[in-house]
């Protein structure tokens, strides 16, 4: 069979002649000097990312050491730590604390919801179901961020589907009781911190499912069976066998849920209270307030927090689960 297929090609020479000219010379040069080829390949992406991205980041960091003249509103380009002093005001610390708390809660809730999905997909789903589960996580992950937020605006609105559903179930009193609580409540779910929390969990959940599933795929099924053969209850098996093995995956997923919540400014702006998050503070400082130095100093906060977070995650072996 394969001989027949190869026959027509036998008329062309097996070894192609060198092409000569500039092209041949270039090709020879790259063959003799692979370092040169490597340099030429790396130069465009490194120049692009180095100049456009790292350059901008560096300029931003630099500006956090400038200060703003409170009377003229102009930026004073002298090295000072005054802006970082401003950052430590009580109101700003409040914003940072609120954002970090939200990020932690969102991370915890995502992990709780993600685990059963990831576990089912890793251990029980086979063949077509496995593909279906994979797409079932990938599609929401990649579908439009704003559309997802918009969908929740529809759901959480006072006249929306959730209120309708609760009314049908005669549970409206529960919603009203929850909304009358301080901090988490509000006029309706779409202007409460609870709403912000739900949307954050929804939007970042797929980022948690994928690494947890990857970690659980590596747990051999007979480990779980051995545990129950040795008399462990399902709860004990989960606590002592599954959870420790899934932990690197959960930590890897939490990097995304935590970092994305820290930097987001659109979700709390559309669904939530008027209390600011870090992202909103950055946005309003650079936009309406025109205080670029303070905005720059604010962006340093998530960078530093994530720096520590990544350092801790690396120690827990989370990067192997990515």
């Amino acid at each position, binding site marked *: 069979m394969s001989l027949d297929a190869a026959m027509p090609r036998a008329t062309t020479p097996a070894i*192609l*002649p060198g*092409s000569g000219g500039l*092209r041949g010379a270039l*090709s020879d040069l*790259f063959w003799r000097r692979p370092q040169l080829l*490597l340099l030429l*390949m*790396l130069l*465009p*992406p*490194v120049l692009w990312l180095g100049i456009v*991205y*790292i350059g*901008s*980041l560096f*300029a*931003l960091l630099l500006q956090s050491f400038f200060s703003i003249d409170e009377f003229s509103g102009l930026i004073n380009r002298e090295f000072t730590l005054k802006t970082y002093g401003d950052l430590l005001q009580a109101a700003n610390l409040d914003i940072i604390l609120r954002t970090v708390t939200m990020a932690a809660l969102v991370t915890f809730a995502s992990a709780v*919801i993600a685990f*059963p999905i990831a576990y*089912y997909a890793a*251990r029980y789903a*086979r063949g077509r179901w496995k*593909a279906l589960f994979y*797409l*079932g996580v990938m*599609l*929401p*992950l*990649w579908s*439009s*961020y704003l*559309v*997802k*937020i*918009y*969908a929740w605006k*529809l759901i959480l*609105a006072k*006249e*929306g589907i959730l209120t*309708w559903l609760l009314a049908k179930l005669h549970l409206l009193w529960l919603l009203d009781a929850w909304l009358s609580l301080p901090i988490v409540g509000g006029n309706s779910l779409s202007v409460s911190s609870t709403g912000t929390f739900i949307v954050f969990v*929804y939007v970042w*959940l797929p*980022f948690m499912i994928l690494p947890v599933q990857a970690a659980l795929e590596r747990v051999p099924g*007979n480990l779980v*069976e051995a545990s129950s053969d040795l008399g462990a209850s399902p709860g004990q098996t989960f606590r002592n066998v599954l959870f420790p093995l899934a932990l690197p995956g959960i930590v890897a997923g939490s990097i*995304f849920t935590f*970092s994305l919540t*820290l*930097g*987001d400014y*659109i979700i709390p*702006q559309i669904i939530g209270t008027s209390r600011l998050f870090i992202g909103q503070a950055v*946005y309003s400082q*650079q936009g309406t307030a025109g205080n670029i130095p303070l905005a*720059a100093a604010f*962006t340093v906060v998530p*960078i530093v927090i*994530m720096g520590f977070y990544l350092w801790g995650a690396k120690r827990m072996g989370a990067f192997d689960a990515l």
Partner: protein
Amino acid sequence: MRSDRGQSAPIGLKLAATGGLLFLHLPILLIFVYAFTTEEKSFVWPPPGLTTQWFAITWNRPDVWQALSLSVRVAAISTAIALVLGTLCAAAVSRTKFFGRETISLLVILPIALPGIITGIALRSAFALAEIPFSFWTIVLGHATFCVVVVYNNAVARFRRTSGSMIEASMDLGADGFQTFRHVVLPNIATALLAGGMLAFALSFDEVIVTTFTAGQQQTVPIWMLEELIRPRQRPVTNVVAMVVVLVTLLPILAAYYLTRDGDQIAGSGK
């Protein structure tokens, strides 16, 4: 040999997994219903009636078309740039070991690992410092930067699976570097590049956080939607646009999945 084959999951796990998947999908499906509602002023459920008139009205809205055209052009150019830069970078990193290789991978991933607002404000302040006015190209500059990683991830995964001996065989048989690239390397990585390109397109088409900082007064589709979310003007038109956006981003993702499903991963991490 796994002994648990055929064993079914505990009912609690089944319920929790199904519930989780429904939680992920129902909200998006809801958009489709709202695109047909006759209600104009509020988000009332259930819809008082169904109509297709909003599709015609949206079709005749020039601002929607302008936003769509800008988004498509930005996504196309950014994807093209990302394809070139991402492939070059992936080829260099996967073929050879050199000093600073880890740094290069980090450099590529960084624009997507750090929160978008940092990338956005960094670019904006850099444009302000360099006195570059906002234009089509300032949007492209931002988008291409974070699209590189998607192409890079797909290409690196494919390069790892492509055996280096094929390239050596091609060279041994007398093909020069360009011929080897054209006839051996390119056919091998083509589907990975196509998948990476589609995901990059979807990513750029959907991006809003960086774009708010680099667009100035121009409106891409997500910026248009953001405006509508903050200051609603005509809710039914927003519903229709939202539905169209879901469909438009769905297709490249499904295509990318089918192109790369044989073994290597789609760059799903870190959007």
